[in-house]
């Protein structure tokens, strides 16, 4: 695990410098470069951070899904640490989505919240993963926490494709950013800025994930040493 920690530290440093350059540049593009959207006005600029937050939240839950499967298959604690870390970040970014969405919706739809399909399924996803985090604190031991949360992580992720297709399935009025064919209706400069924000958020997510995994590994080291001390009567 010490080798993994060293690797993570190097990875974090590289990502930190990249994010430190890209984040201010993204903000500059969002506020100074892209033009105002014609119908929504300034509030449309929320989209440049709202959508990337949703993307990294889903990415986080995908990491939980894969790591949970790997944990159940191998029983290696490393995969549980990865899943737990990604779940925490998924909840964090999903909270940003659920905060910024209503702020955008109020002036555009005239209401803070509506029980529209995509909003409702996103709220369900957030609640499932908050339950995932709470469940871990209530488990009787480390193995039980890992096993039960892995099951919740796998089942919880199934909501992500439902969210993605919810607008088409239930004909909701949430704007569709990605279409399977045809253009996205974005000006080229808006599209470039949007892609820049997506890249920045992905790198920022990876930085936070590396830091959070390192924290989890250090916690494992502490409990291993404590266990060893108890067993040896030190």
């Amino acid at each position: 695990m010490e080798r993994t920690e060293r690797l993570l530290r190097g990875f974090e440093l590289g990502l930190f410098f990249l994010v430190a350059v890209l984040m201010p540049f993204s903000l500059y593009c969002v506020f100074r470069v892209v033009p105002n959207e014609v119908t929504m006005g300034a509030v449309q600029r929320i989209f440049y951070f709202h959508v990337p937050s949703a993307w990294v939240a889903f990415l986080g839950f995908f990491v939980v899904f894969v790591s949970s499967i790997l944990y159940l298959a191998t029983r290696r604690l490393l995969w549980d640490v990865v899943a737990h870390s990604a779940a925490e970040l998924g909840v964090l970014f999903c909270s940003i989505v659920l905060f910024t969405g209503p702020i955008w919706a109020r002036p555009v739809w005239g209401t803070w919240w509506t029980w529209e399909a995509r909003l409702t399924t996103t709220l369900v996803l957030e609640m499932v993963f908050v339950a995932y985090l709470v469940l871990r604190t209530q488990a009787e031991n480390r193995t039980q926490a890992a096993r039960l949360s892995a099951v919740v992580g796998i089942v919880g992720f199934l909501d992500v494709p439902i969210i993605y297709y919810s607008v088409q399935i239930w004909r909701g009025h949430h704007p569709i950013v990605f279409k399977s064919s045809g253009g996205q209706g974005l000006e080229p400069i808006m599209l470039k800025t949007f892609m820049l924000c997506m890249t920045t958020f992905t790198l920022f997510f990876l930085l936070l994930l590396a830091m959070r995994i390192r924290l989890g590994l250090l916690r494992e080291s502490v409990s291993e040493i404590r266990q060893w001390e108890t067993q040896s009567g030190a």
Partner: protein
Amino acid sequence: MKNLNYLFWAYTLIWIVLAGYLLSLSIRLKAISSQVRRLKSRLPGGDEG
């Protein structure tokens, strides 16, 4: 600019959440790193890492 206050609150909220999390992560990492160092120094063979 129309609806500027909504834009302001959205970005303020994003930065409060992200900066708060980054700060809490850094504090937790610093605390646990020093705890690991302290515990390792107590082990036989001490500071060998």
